[in-house]
């Protein structure tokens, strides 16, 4: 029996009221088409540097979906997804540099290793709820860079100096620059993982995961195996982070313990909250935020004169607080309520 009775907070409940004479479904279809055209056309108009940035946005987006599955849908808070991101990155870097494995073949390995690591970490984490789990995962994020630095692993990890990967060229003699090729590679991966996650949360498993978050006792009564689903959710979430980390290693061409500091894990949490908890598509906005806002904060701090270089952190904080004030449900939450807001505005105009 499935927990059909649980009310989902999914955007499926969009109002079917017409806006500007157009059906909401049509609006959504138009948005989709626009997104697809932008994503596919970008490499032919953007410079290599911007493509590098957008590749990173896609990579962050994959990691954010993973974290959102765990935190947004399943209600388990993780402050340590940077650790799985690091494991994925190092798996790829070691396989490529030490064993000569082609870079694309390392993604499934990185995903599998992180899935197992996440599942195993998820088992004891079952006994920890809320803040205690947050603390345990926090410890994971703190420990990982130092473990990567451990001298016993130096021969494999390159120690504090890290590992360099050479940039892959487009296969099959495609007329693409390495930046364009990597962007498409990341885009394909992101599309696959978005599709998989959207299917996952829409189906029976997704309802079970949400049910556990909203009412564990009711979920259990309905026959949901809580411990299995929770550990599984942790594993899948880590898999996403791991694949993202692997892609990051390929795109950046470098891994080192400093690449995966504590701030990365916190950025992921910022990303899903900004994008909107329990929203698959919101993470795109979250990824844009964590990629671009620190840069803008740095540029804005320049406005305060040369001696104000200490400000990027403060400006980042102010922007974050401001955004949360304006959009408490994240960007996805704001978009969800936008149609309702619009139709109310328009109907008022008609009656008025």
């Amino acid at each position, binding site marked *: 029996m499935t927990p059909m009775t649980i009310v989902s907070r999914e955007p499926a409940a969009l109002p079917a009221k017409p806006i500007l004479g157009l059906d909401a479904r049509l609006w959504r279809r138009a948005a989709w088409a626009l997104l697809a*055209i932008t994503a596919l056309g970008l490499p032919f108009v953007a410079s290599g540097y911007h493509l590098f940035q957008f590749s990173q946005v896609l990579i962050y987006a994959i990691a954010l979906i993973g974290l959102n599955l765990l935190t947004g849908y399943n209600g388990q808070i993780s402050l340590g997804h940077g650790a799985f991101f690091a494991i994925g990155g190092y798996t790829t870097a070691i396989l490529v540099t030490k064993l000569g494995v082609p870079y694309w073949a390392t993604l499934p390995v990185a995903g599998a290793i992180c899935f197992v690591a996440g599942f195993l970490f998820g088992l004891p984490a079952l006994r920890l709820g809320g803040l205690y789990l947050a603390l345990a995962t926090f410890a994971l994020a703190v420990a990982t860079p130092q473990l990567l630095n451990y001298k016993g692993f130096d021969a494999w990890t390159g120690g504090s100096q890290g590992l360099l990967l050479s940039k892959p060229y487009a296969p099959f003699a495609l007329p693409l620059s390495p930046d364009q090729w990597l962007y498409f590679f990341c885009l394909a991966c992101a599309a696959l993982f978005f599709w998989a996650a959207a299917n996952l949360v829409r189906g029976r498993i997704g309802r079970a995961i949400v049910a556990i978050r909203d009412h564990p006792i009711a979920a259990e009564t309905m026959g949901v195996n809580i411990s299995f689903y929770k550990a599984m959710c942790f594993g899948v979430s880590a898999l996403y982070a791991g694949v993202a980390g692997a892609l990051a290693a390929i795109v950046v061409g*470098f891994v080192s313990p400093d690449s995966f500091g504590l701030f990365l894990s916190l950025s992921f949490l910022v990303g899903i909250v900004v994008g909107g908890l329990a929203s698959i598509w919101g993470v795109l906005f979250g990824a844009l935020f964590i990629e671009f806002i620190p840069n803008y904060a740095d540029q804005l701090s320049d406005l305060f004169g040369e001696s104000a*270089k*200490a400000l990027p952190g403060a400006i*980042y904080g102010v922007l974050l607080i401001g955004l949360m004030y304006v959009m408490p449900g994240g960007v996805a939450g704001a978009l969800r309520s936008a149609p309702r807001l619009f139709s109310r505005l328009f109907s008022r105009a008609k009656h008025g």
Partner: protein
Amino acid sequence: MISRRTFLRASAVSAAALASGTRAALADNAPGITDTEIKIGQTMPYSGPASAYGVIGKADVAYFKMINEAGGINGRKINLISLDDGYSPPKAVEQIRRLVEQDQVAFIFNSLGTPSNYAIRPYLTENKVPQLFVATGAAMWSDPKNFPWTIGWQPNYQTEAHIFGKNIIATTPNAKIGVLYQNDAFGKDYLIGVKDGLGADHAGMVVKEASYEVSEPTVDSQIVSLQDSGADTLLIAATPKFAAQAIRKTFDIGWTPVRYMTDVSQSIAAVMKPAGLEKSKGVITAVYGKDPSDARWRDDAGFKEYAAFIAKYMTPADLIDSNAVYGFGTAATMVQVLRQCGADLSRENIMRQAANIKDLELPMLLPGAKINTSPDNFSPIRQMQLATFNGESWSAFGDLLQG
């Protein structure tokens, strides 16, 4: 979906862009050079765990401002775009690509951090963009054969350890040496340098090596095991916190070896005071610059020049910050290189001149110390002087030594 025509048009545009890019590279001057400006870039950890180093970037910017106010270089103003990388190598790669591709800087100057510089080096080498005077002490930046576009600045850790090794042989040829080192690139460079300085014949003088992890709370057990080895000379290749512990522990257990300590940890405020000024007496280190908190430089012309610069372009708190001294020195070296370039500001010539510095003296280098580079020598500062701690400050002794 993209139609075939759009695709073709887009590829034609990108092909044209590529072609024009090639033309620019063939032109005389590097990108970012106009008749009125020399645009250069760097990344600095203004945020994040290493943000204390951000002062270096501020000093660089301030120094160029001073040069610009005095008329610039051959009428060109230096415009340094200094970006925050939060000490994260992926961010550094992104920011460097922005500087090179979007801002079109002529070269990269004084970017900070060993991992970050290591991560950006392949990209800069591939694109033949000079990576000048990197702010790290690792030995790997001095490799002109494999990386002709990258050059260091400060004495590297190997140079310094080399000097210690030579001095031990000269003064105490029968010494038994124990080495305490941090288990990372810095510590290992040090170990290599010491053995190199001792030479193959004396390699047996190192009787014990003990390493520690940055995550360890103390190095007490390492010090005890070094004492047990019978060593009478201790070499401390440790960062400030651990160096202070090592100095205090040797004193507390009544062990009195000759203590050599890396210049990384020679801060009196951060190391000698926490360790105990009395307990720190007799520690030997190597210095290459003037310590701005040392009273003996108060009437020195070079120090006065530095103090005047700080007073006008920085904040008073920066005066005794060794990072400000550092930026003051690297920026001055950079100005010298740009002056040497004359009218030819191509990337090739800028690199050629960076590797062609002859006997440059800087206000805050030790008197007599000179910066020299050549096509086979990418280690600009190689001279240091030994100094011993007298319970209050460092007092230099002996001649300038070449590592």
